[in-house]
Structures are given as structure tokens and as C-alpha cells.
């Protein structure tokens, strides 16, 4: 039986627990033995990306301690996984601590985004989900460009019973969130969001799906403010959905 440890980023833990719960259900359904190390807190993404990497060195060490013995670490957030895989090595290097550098290098490849883990490590693209709705998939920037998850989420979505996938114009364009960018450069962020919302509506789907709650939070924020009927769901929520147990 495959074993994995759940890494549930702070904002998902706090704001979007349903995404992590859905991920848990999907992984358990396909037979993964899961644990959730409760001593985890935050990977430090927001700090690192805002220029505060030096304030959160301790989070890198925490993270390594928490997941030290994990076979695989799986998270429902591409951007947090990208922080661990791409930023931790730089931070370790800057610390000048050879033990930390070595530990980070050895550890980070085991940290996987949800769709990577399903498709690459488990070799599963059909999780037995059913979701009879029209869906537009938003390829989150950090998922596609930083992690290179490619079409793994789409492979998973295509095997969902009853789903109708809709094309979205300019799907690859950033929604304008960018973490603290959304408050530091709020006007530009809002302008980008307005265009994304227009593209979502143009796609004509009932639901927007992404593999990161950060983009979804942003897109939902715009969709809701404009009183549209489109809802947002994390990829895991769609995959968790089954006949009789809808998302």
C-alpha cells in the first residue's frame, strides 16, 4: 500500500479545508495510506515571494523536521510545492549550512503536487469520479510553468464521468493574484482579474477548476463580486465527487 504524508498549506488549512478534505478522500479511495503531521505550519511561500526569505529560514528547517520520514509528501497546492522544490534550495544555499543544503537537496524531490502524485507516482488517471457539470480548467501559473504539471490535471478531469470540459480563451494567462501582489499592486491585479472573469464567463462553464486555491480564491472573489453564477472548485473536489456524493 502506498504511503504519503499530507502537506496542507496554511491558507488551505484555514480558508479552504474542503479542498484538503477532498484530496484526502480521493487518495484514500485509491488506496493510499495517509498521515497528517500536525506539527506542520506554513512553507513560507508568501514570505519568500515578497522578499522575506531571510525571516523564514526556520520554516525551512521546520518543514524538513516535520516531513523527515515521509515517503512522499503530497499537497493540494502547486505554488507551495514550487516554493519547497524551487525556493528551498536557494534558501539553503544562502544559509551556508552544508547539512541543510544536503538535506534540502535530498528531500525536496519527494514533495509532490496532488496531480503529479496521482499520475506519476501512482500511475492513476481515473479515480472513479463522477461530476455531471460543465467545467473550465484554469491552468495555474505555478502548476504549469514552475512545476511543469502539464496536462496531468486535464488527464484526470477527462476521466471523470459526466464532465463536460469547456475551452477557455487565454486560459494560460495569469489571473492576477500573485500573493501580496494583489494588495501591493491591487489596481493592476484587479484589471487582470476583470479580464480573467470575462474569459471564464466566455467559456460558458458552470464551474472553474484549478489545482491551487490561491488562484481560485482570487477568481472566485471576482466572480462573486460581479454576482455571476459560476462557482470555483479545487481539482480534488471534482475528483472526490461521486454519484450520490457530489462536490
Amino acid at each position: 500500500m502506498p504511503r504519503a504524508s499530507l502537506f496542507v498549506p496554511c491558507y488551505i488549512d484555514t480558508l479552504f479545508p474542503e479542498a484538503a478534505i477532498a484530496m484526502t478522500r480521493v487518495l484514500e479511495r485509491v488506496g493510499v495510506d495517509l498521515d497528517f503531521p500536525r506539527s506542520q505550519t506554513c512553507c513560507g511561500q508568501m514570505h519568500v515571494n515578497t522578499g522575506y526569505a531571510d525571516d523564514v529560514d526556520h520554516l525551512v528547517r521546520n518543514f524538513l523536521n516535520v516531513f523527515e520520514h515521509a515517503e512522499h509528501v503530497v499537497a493540494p497546492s502547486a505554488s507551495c510545492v514550487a516554493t519547497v522544490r524551487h525556493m528551498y534550495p536557494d534558501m539553503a544555499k544562502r544559509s551556508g549550512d552544508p547539512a541543510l543544503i544536503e538535506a534540502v537537496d535530498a528531500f525536496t524531490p519527494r514533495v509532490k503536487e496532488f496531480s503529479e502524485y496521482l499520475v506519476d507516482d501512482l500511475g492513476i488517471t481515473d479515480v472513479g469520479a463522477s461530476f455531471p457539470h460543465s467545467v473550465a480548467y484554469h491552468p495555474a501559473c505555478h502548476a504549469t510553468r514552475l512545476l511543469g504539471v502539464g496536462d496531468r490535471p486535464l488527464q484526470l478531469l477527462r476521466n471523470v464521468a459526466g464532465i463536460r470540459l469547456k475551452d477557455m480563451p487565454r486560459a494560460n494567462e495569469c489571473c492576477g493574484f500573485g500573493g501580496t501582489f494583489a494588495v501591493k499592486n491591487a489596481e493592476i491585479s484587479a484589471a487582470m482579474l476583470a479580464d480573467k472573469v470575462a474569459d471564464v464567463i466566455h467559456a460558458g462553464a458552470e464551474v472553474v477548476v484549478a489545482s491551487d486555491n490561491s488562484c481560485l480564491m482570487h477568481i472566485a472573489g471576482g466572480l462573486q463580486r460581479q454576482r455571476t453564477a459560476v462557482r470555483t472548485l479545487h481539482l480534488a473536489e471534482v475528483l472526490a465527487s461521486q454519484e450520490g456524493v457530489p462536490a
Partner: protein
Amino acid sequence: MSDARIPLPFHEAAPRALDDGQLRRNLANVTSSIREKRAAMTSEMPDWEALRDAGKAIKEHTLANLGHYLEQLEASVTAAGGTVHWARDADEANRIVRDLVRETGTRDVVKVKSMTTDEIHLNEALAEDGVTAIETDLAELIVQLAHEPSSHILVPAIHKNRSEIRALFLEAFDLDPSELSDDPAALAGAARRFLRERFLTAKVAVSGANFAVADTGTLCVVESEGNGRMCTTLPDTLITVMGIEKVVPTWRDLEVFLQLLPRSSTAERMNPYTSFWTGVREGDGPQTFHLVLLDAGRSATLRDEAGRDTLRCIRCSACLNVCPIYERVGGHAYGSVYPGPIGAILTPQLRGAKQDGELPYASTLCGACYEVCPVKIDIPSILVEMRRRTVHKERAESRLPATSLIDAALRGAAVAFATPRRYEAAQRLARIGQAPWVRKGVLKNLPGPLAGWSDARDLRAIPKQAFRDWWRERDEKQEMDA
């Protein structure tokens, strides 16, 4: 860069640009069409990725041996009859060019489009001697006539439309409105008549360079209109100002860059005009050639491990065209000769003015720039590193315990996230503390910097149960069941 006239900081200029509907439409049109074309032009190349790797490798090798290749370049240019000058900074470069122009006694200089001479504000420096430098690239001419800086590396007048250009030409060329329509061909014709006269009379031309070949001493300029070639062939004296990072070791290396550059920049298989010149040749072209090698912060950038990669840039502007921020605010908002993603990392390094510290924040780190860069500069990672430096600088300069509310919040969060106990306490506190802003389950009118968020977006209130609480509850239940 020494620059007395530093424009508005980004956070003030960007919202103004956003409000300019005409600018937004022009930018959206141009960037979206060039994006599509670039994608087509690069995807038809089976070895595009290999070319990018080669471009990166050649630049890395050259930069690692920059001193050697620059000395080789100096020797080859000198052997071919040119004169090489070394300029530590913008002032020194300007002084060299001013002296050279003064020696010729001319008052008119024609210019080939060049970022480097914009960077050092050469035109303004020449004007102090009463010398007029006419930009001969059509788009550069347009922004020059409008007394504006260019807003795009490659398409300097991207922010202007036809009717605006017509108005400028009517005034500058002293034409009757009946003589000029806003038809692109008519506009180009008017500019051509104006420029021809300049080409035929100018004694001195000033250019930049896209590449300089160390082993032959050959300079290269890549362009679309042919006006650059007029400048590099007709006048008696040619002065080229070039950043030291533009050197490549051999002719063979151009094979890589002359494929990468046009496809990345104008989305063409080959640009219409590629001019090469090597020193001087009696009876053919300029009889005097000067090459000014400009440092202006580049060797400092080269010494810096994190910033070094920035110097690989071949100024193709692909990163601007795909940047969603650039597409919304245009080039002027960046307040620098180098706008967009490359500007956001290059300007703080080369100019380093106080306000440049905010430029690296003009990005969502979406990575679109890195995806297209022909020399694979990892711009997002450099942006993050430049942000780290901004934070350090702001802290060093501030005597307050925090430099801003965001700074205070992030410092607090770094402490709160240190242990699970504190983290969970903060989580509970947020759940209770949100109450004043919750309306029907939605967070509205948030305070402080968060207002930037809630001005345009809703946010669902923090739910009662965090994932970790759900997990524990389930664990306990399972244990009880067992």
C-alpha cells in the same frame, strides 16, 4: 545610470496608465498579435529549445571570460582601423561621444535605434552642445517628436495610434492637414521624406549594437526598416555605443543569435536588415569608426552571482510582450528605459535609484517571461532575489520597527508560523477577529492594506473548522470506533 530626471514611481504611474483606455487597447492589440506570431515562429523550429540552450551557453561562457573577449574585441577593432574607448559610466560615455562629435564640427547627428544610448541619455547630453540627434527608427522618431521616452524596447511607439502619429507629423514636418492622411503608408512616406534629407546631409551617425564579434571586430545591428543601414553607411563618422555584455566570441555564435533574436522579438524568421561592419574601409562607408564600450553598472552586476544572468539579455522584448503586467500598464509606468520583466530586474541593478526597489514587485511571478526568454533567464527567481534586497535596503534605511503595514504583518506571521501552537492560536484569532468584516459569510471592506483586495473582490469568511481540526476529529472518532 545617472539620471537627474527620474520619473514617477511605479505605484503612482501604474494606476494612471490603467486609466488610459486608449493605451490599454493599443497595448492589448499589439501584444496579443505579437504573442501569437512569436508562438508560431518558435514552434515551427524543431530545435528551438536547443537554440535557447545554445544561446544561454554562449552568453554564459562569454560573461565568464568577459575581460578576455573585450580585450580581443578591442584588438580586432583597432586592427581594422577603428578606435575603441572605454566608459566607466554614463557620464564618461557621453563625454567621449560629445568630444568626438565636437571634433567633427557638425551640429546634426543621425541615430540608429539604440537602447544603450537611451540608457545614458545621450541625446540630451549632445543637446547641451547644441547638437541635434535625430532618431531614424520610425517609432523612435515618433516618440522623439512627442518628447516622450519610448515605452517598448522594440516598438517604442506601441502606445500611440495612427491619428496621434498623424497629428505629430503635421506639426513636426510643417505639413498642411490636406497633405497627410492617417494611412500607415502615407505616414511612413512623410517620415521617409523627412529622414532621407537627414541621411544625405549628416556627417556623423551614432548607433548601438546588438552584437560585437570579438575575433573579427565586427559590429552587428539588426533592424526592420533599413534606416539603421543608412546611418551606418552614409555619414563620414560612425560612433557605436555598446554595453560590454554584447560581445560574442566568434562569427559562428551569430548563427544562434540571429535565429533567436528575430523570432523572439518581431516574430519574423529573419529580420529584414542585418548590418555588419568591421572597422573602416577606404572609399566605402564611414572613414572614421569609434566604438565606446560602456560599463555603467554591468561589471558590478557580473560580480553578483544572483544578478549575473540578467546580462545574458539580448533585448528581444519577448518578455514584455507576454507579461500581463506590461500589457496592462505599458512601458512608461516602469520609469526606466528598460520596462517589463527585464526592466524590473535590470533597472534596480543598473540604475539602483531608491524607487527602483519597487519594480521587482511589479509581477505576479507567473513565469510567462521565463517561458519565452530566448536565453533562458529565470526572471521570476531574480525578481524574488531583488525583492529580498529591497526588503533589506528598506529596513536598513528605516528607523521604525516596521517599514510598512505589510512589513509588520509579514514579520508577525514569521513569528506566528514558527511553532504549531502559535500557528493554531493565530488561526483561532483570525477566525474570531474577522467578525467585524463578515457580511453574510463574506469578508467585505477589509482594513489597511487588505482594502486593496476587498475593493474589487469578495472573500469567503474563514470557516469554523480548519482541516487539521477535521482530521483530528476524524482520528478521534476512528479510535473510538476501534
